[in-house]
């Protein structure tokens, strides 16, 4: 039997009255697929907070998409008792989002902890994104517990990867714990190690209350549920709280801890982790990183580190069926309740009709939002090629912020700046050449290269964000047979020789296909896009030129030859019904055509032209 806390020991660790020295706040840093959720599930079982009967795989990942993709988007905190010797401890496991787009959320989750379990697949070794989060944890002075997971796998090489981890965090390979979330081997030892190695939280119980929001989730029945870590003082039921960034006050309707189901408590004190319900309906009113204090006796200093989420990637989303526009609008309004980073405004495209220009944290965020819109709201959508924000300065000094390529100004441009990222790539050393080739093709600048071991290399690049948002990750994976991993963080801006390439059909500009690309790649983009459209647009009764242009200068051209014959000669032995049905089908098809000038373009052509290839012309 695992050391589930006895009732007597448990009495000392009740919420709101647990001495900080009996608390341990930790998170698990891991790559997608390295088994974080399975390990968390095993901990829930071993500590007795979830019995085997109600256990469902990956208990903590609530949304379907998360479960299907095996990734965590929203973090959560779970309080688990664990007894070592005669003493029961309350362990708070704070789950961290597992993707590059959510670095800020990760940083807030880490700031709520004193320790981190660095979980690495014993058959694969550390991945770039885990490495980035590890550095983040080390910067936050978290105690790092290196753990190799999946040691039950035949392909596991724990010795090799223990050495790699020891090199990274500075320690001995023997310090690396070995577990299997699947079989449960080593998990008790890990829980003991968390108690032993993670420092207890420290705070001033008598100071005005200060708690940091590390997650905020919208729940249909309860409104916004806000997860906080108390630093100083105490939060109690029914008191008034204040958000320091906005000074908004809210009534605390409920306060409690998750275990993992919500349990209302008499409050939460120094070092504790719990949830708050105030009745607000929009996560924007309860933002990650903000400091919560008592409205009657407020703290004056925020805990720091708060940042408004900034959309980095923009894409136009349009319903394929124009009459779905109100459904899309309502769906976005609903998603927004649970997604403080989602920004959108209505947009009209000549080619695609009414839709929205939507700002995302990054590509995964885009994919998740799109997938939820399609799945939960039953929408069929077209999305335009994603783009980043450009700052354009004109010769006359005017500045334009470009969130949509069609906003790119005409006239004399002095400078264009684009966002750049610091990217870290980890891969087996045999792929170094391949990766360099890819990164150079995307205007990357190599910043450094380190060998983690004989076989694994870390490459650091500065890359334009605009060059990696389309298919960089897919290319990386396919060129390295899935072995390379990528992490990036936004790292400022740079000037770049960027131009807008327009696509014209019979002289009419098709706004949905305009793209901002580097001048050297403009020709390739033009050739690719005109060639693709030539294949996708059916022949018309007249010749249709397809041109790519920078301003008034044509850089590429294709021609769709005129259709000469569409008539059917036979009448199928008097089968007029068949002929009429064919006409009705054609007319139905025509309704789904968009007219660009006189050219009829099937919706599918837009979808196909927008979905497959990157704007870089690769």
């Amino acid at each position, binding site marked *: 039997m695992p050391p589930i806390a006895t009732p007597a020991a448990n009495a000392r660790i009740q919420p709101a009255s647990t001495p900080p020295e009996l608390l341990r706040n930790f998170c698990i840093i891991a790559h997608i697929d390295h088994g974080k959720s399975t390990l968390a599930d095993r901990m829930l079982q071993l500590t007795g907070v979830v019995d085997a009967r109600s256990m469902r795989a990956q208990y903590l990942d609530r949304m379907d998409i998360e479960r299907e993709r095996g990734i965590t988007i929203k973090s959560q905190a779970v309080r688990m008792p664990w007894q070592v010797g005669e003493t029961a401890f309350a362990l708070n496991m704070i789950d961290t989002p597992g993707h590059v787009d959510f670095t800020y959320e990760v940083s807030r989750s880490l700031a709520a902890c004193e320790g981190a379990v660095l979980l690495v697949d014993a058959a694969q070794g550390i991945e770039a994104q885990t490495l980035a989060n590890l550095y983040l944890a080390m910067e936050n002075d978290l105690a790092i517990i290196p753990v190799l997971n999946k040691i039950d796998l035949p392909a596991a090489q724990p010795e090799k990867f223990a050495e790699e981890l020891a090199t990274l965090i500075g320690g001995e390979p023997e310090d690396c714990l070995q577990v299997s979330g699947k079989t449960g081997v080593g998990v008790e030892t890990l829980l003991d190690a968390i108690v032993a190695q993670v420092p207890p939280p420290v705070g001033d119980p008598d100071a005005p209350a200060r708690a940091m929001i590390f997650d905020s989730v919208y729940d249909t029945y309860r409104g916004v549920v806000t997860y906080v870590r108390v630093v100083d003082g105490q939060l109690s039921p029914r008191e008034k709280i204040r958000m320091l960034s906005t000074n908004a006050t809210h009534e605390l309707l409920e306060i409690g801890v998750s275990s993992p189901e919500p349990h209302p408590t008499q409050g939460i004190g120094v070092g504790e982790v719990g949830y708050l319900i105030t009745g607000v309906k929009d996560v924007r009113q309860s933002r990650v990183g903000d400091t919560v204090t008592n409205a009657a006796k407020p703290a004056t200093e925020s805990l720091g580190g708060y940042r408004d989420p900034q959309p980095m990637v923009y894409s136009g989303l349009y319903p394929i069926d124009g009459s779905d526009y109100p459904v899309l609008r309502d769906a976005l309004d609903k998603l927004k309740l649970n997604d403080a980073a989602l920004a959108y405004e209505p947009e009209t495209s000549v080619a695609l009709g009414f839709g929205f220009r939507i700002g995302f944290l990054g590509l995964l965020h885009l994919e998740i939002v799109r997938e939820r819109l399609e799945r939960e709201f039953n929408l069929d959508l077209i999305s335009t090629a994603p783009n980043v924000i450009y700052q354009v300065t004109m010769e006359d000094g005017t500045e334009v912020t470009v969130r949509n390529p069609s906003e790119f100004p005409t006239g004399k441009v002095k400078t264009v700046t684009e966002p750049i990222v610091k990217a870290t790539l980890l891969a087996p050393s045999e792929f170094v050449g391949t990766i360099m080739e890819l990164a150079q093709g995307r205007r990357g600048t190599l910043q450094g290269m380190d060998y983690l071991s004989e076989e694994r290399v870390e490459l650091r690049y500065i890359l334009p964000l605009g060059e990696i948002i389309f298919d960089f990750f897919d290319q990386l994976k396919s060129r390295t047979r899935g072995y390379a991993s990528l992490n990036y963080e936004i790292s400022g801006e740079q000037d770049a020789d960027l131009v807008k390439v327009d696509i014209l059909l019979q002289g009419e500009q098709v706004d949905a296909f305009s793209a901002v690309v580097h001048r050297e790649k403009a020709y390739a983009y033009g050739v690719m896009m005109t060639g693709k459209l030539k294949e996708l647009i059916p022949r018309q*009764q*007249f010749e249709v030129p397809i041109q790519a242009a920078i301003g008034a200068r044509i850089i590429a051209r294709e021609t769709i*030859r005129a*259709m*000469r*014959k*569409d*008539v*059917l*000669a*036979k*009448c*199928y*032995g*008097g*089968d*007029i*019904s068949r*002929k*009429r049905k064919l*006409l*009705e089908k*054609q*007319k139905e098809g*025509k309704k789904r055509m968009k007219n660009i000038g006189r050219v009829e373009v099937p919706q599918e052509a837009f979808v196909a032209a927008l979905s497959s290839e990157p704007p870089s012309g690769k």
Partner: protein
Amino acid sequence: MSTGALPGSVVAGSGERDFGVYLHVPFCSVRCGYCDFNTYTATELGGGASQANYATTAIGEIELAASAMRDVGLPQRNVSTVFLGGGTPTLLPAADLTRLLDAVGQAWGLSDDAEVTTEANPDSVTAADLAELAGAGFTRVSFGMQSAVPSVLHTLERTHDPRRIPDVVTWARDAGLRVSLDLIYGTPGETLDHWRTSLDAVLALEPDHVSAYALTVEPGTKMGAQVRRGLLPMPDPDDEATKYEIAAAALAGAGYDWYEISNFARTPADRCRHNIAYWRSHDWWGVGPGAHSHVGGHRWWNVKHPRPYAERVDAGQLPVAESETLTQRQREDERVLLGVRLADGLDVGPDLRGRLPTLVADGLLEGDPASAGRAVLTLRGRLLADTVVRALTD
């Protein structure tokens, strides 16, 4: 399954519509690879369906048809056109074809100037047959010549010897029958010269009427499968367009005017009135398995296989598989869809006349008739008739 009873709505306006009969003969000696018509090569199909007693069964349907039309209250109309198609009608003995024609006359009455056509395969027809048919009241014969080039005929899996064509044409003319020759263009492997050769051969025979159909590859046919598997190339619409233009020029040069997209005649009297009745939405009863019919906005088609067809008719039921009664909108769509194919053109209602100038400017319609509200296709428009139809129907 439908009982085949006609709705009362078919009566209205019947006085302005001609009445014709199509007789389908669902038998061939061999099946051609491109053909998707309802036809069978076996002589014995079981259940009483066979080539030998087919005429008797079809006559059964004719009698049922005549009483169904009486029952719904349609006034008596003489039959103005009869068309025997297939399959290969001439695979049946001439006596059977004569019996069928006699049955039509008995059931409805035949106009004095009725046009009575049979399709004929150059392989399976003799001078005596043609004389017998002419004597029985047939006025016209349409030979499925398809091409004069052996390699093209081979691809089409046509078995007849092209050298036989002049003979059958002479026999038919000697019997006093009007002669039509059918050609197919666009067969995989057919060159422009092949096509010109076929046209020259046709013109040398001086038929009264020529039909030129672009090959359509249907998915369910042997040729459809060959194209899908890459054994034959898909006919190229540009190539077909060029061949149509060649045909139109050659035929016009020899004095054959187009009166329907695929049909050309030496004089107005040589036009196929039965065909025109289809394009003008007149009434016709299609007799035989899989045959389609139209009476006053009601369309139906018979069960396809000769065996259930025979069983239904023998049980005294109309062998209808399915039917549809057209809405006013559908009737108008059909009027445009079919009527625009004719050289006489189509009256365009006031709401859609505004679209005619664009169609004229695009070179699809003749300008003069358009200014009078009549849509007449140009040569380019004949090839792009579907585009014109779409413009004039929504």
